């Protein structure tokens, strides 16, 4: 399985948000680090096919990002998402399951599994508006996993999760990364340090580092701050 990113670019007028990024990603966990405005979310949105690139292409096993085959294999958790009022946790997952093409019986079974996995089985019947931030985030993670994605893109997935939930999440991602491509962006360097097979650092729309945590040579946070000139 391969995700091929070929000279991907996004430009708005004179501002280049993503500057000709090319990479070939195979199964594993990729941690995407970068300051605010580096282009991480723009890159992720292009990899999900929800933002059209100005140039370049993205394909998964030969299927272009605009194809239904690509989207069948995609799971995405945006940085910020809403929900329709009056949806319960279960309603939300069933709605997303329908959009991902799961039939009703499979969707029910899968929703039950995922609600158990993310620890929301006891509140599945309650309205999403009553959930805490961490619970909403877990619900978001659950919807990203509905269609057993081969490519999982998570934008700030641990935001709002307490330490215990973050450890649980890390274990889940590490397991998923064994056979799938997982790209996660976060400001919490510790999360990436523990589970990422490769670190991708972005600055001003460009990839300034692509390597393993070992190549960083110890303290990832120190290395990260060094790249951005915060530490001498």
């Amino acid at each position, binding site marked *: 399985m391969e995700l091929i990113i070929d000279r991907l670019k996004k430009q*708005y007028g004179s501002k280049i948000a993503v500057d000709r990024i090319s990479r070939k990603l195979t199964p594993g966990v990729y941690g995407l680090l970068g300051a605010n405005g580096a282009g991480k979310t723009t890159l992720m*949105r292009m990899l*999900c*096919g*929800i*933002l*059209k690139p100005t140039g370049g292409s993205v394909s998964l096993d030969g299927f272009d990002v605009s194809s*239904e085959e690509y*989207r*069948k294999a*995609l799971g*995405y958790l*945006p940085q*910020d*998402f*809403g*929900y*329709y*009022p009056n949806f319960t946790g279960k309603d939300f997952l069933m*709605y*997303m399951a*329908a*959009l*991902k*093409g*799961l*039939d009703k019986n*499979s969707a029910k079974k*899968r929703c039950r599994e995922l609600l158990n996995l993310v620890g929301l089985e006891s509140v599945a019947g309650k309205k999403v508006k009553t959930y805490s931030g961490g619970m909403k985030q877990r619900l978001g993670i659950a*919807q990203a996993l509905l*269609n*057993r994605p081969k490519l999982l893109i998570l934008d700030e997935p641990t935001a709002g999760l307490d330490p215990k939930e973050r450890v649980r999440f890390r274990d889940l991602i590490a397991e998923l990364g064994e056979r799938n491509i997982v790209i996660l962006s976060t400001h919490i360097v510790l999360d990436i340090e523990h589970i990422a097979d490769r670190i991708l650092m972005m600055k001003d729309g460009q990839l300034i580092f692509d390597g393993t945590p070992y190549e960083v040579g110890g303290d990832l946070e120190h290395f990260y701050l060094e790249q951005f000139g915060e530490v001498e």
Partner: protein
Amino acid sequence: MKRRLKSQLKSQMKMIYEAPVPQGKEAFLQKIERMEKEEWRQEEELSCWKVLGIQIGYIRKWNWLVSVLFFAAVIVAEQSVKGRTLWGLSAFVPYLALMVVAEGLRSTRYRMEELELASRFSVKYILLARLGALGLFQLCLLLLLMPFLYTIRREAILEIGIHILLPWLSTVFVMFLMIRKMHGRESHSLCVGTAVIVSGACMTFGIMNVSMFDLAGAGVWTLLLVSGAVLAGREVYQFIRQSEELQWN
């Protein structure tokens, strides 16, 4: 001491009892992968038509109810209160159009756009279901009203059709044009404003007791009706096309 003895015993046992070489490991792992793919393929037996049908189920129930109540109210009013102009009926129609547009904008309003855009059956299906189903339902009700009103009022069918359809089509056209040009919550307010203005204009003509043929000839009104239909259809199409990409904010 105990721990050291235990680890020594472990290493000795490992030397004596060597694990057999795995046989058929690759085949077994491939079998698991095939079974997972088979399970995955069985799970996703949902055609785009079924998805459309499911999406129609998510349209808010009160949208259907209000449309039917409007239809029923017109029938009751026409049978009980005589001598009113058709402008009164025209004044309510823009609010029906507003309901259709509001339903189409729910993804933006409740920040579900990104999730829906990244799904297999993307936002195009959602919008087709919401706008197509509700819009067609309302159009059918409005078209059904025409022969009914003709039998009661004896006004020309063309006049009735223009009174009913033109406010609806022109409101839809203007609303979708504004939504396409102006992203964000301002467009929602402007849509409400459009409905109020079109409705207000119809009510004003009704109060002044102006006949539509005093304002323009039948040919002009017919042309406006046909243009309204074409422009409204075009704007809805452009809206659905544009919605397939997240708009930069």
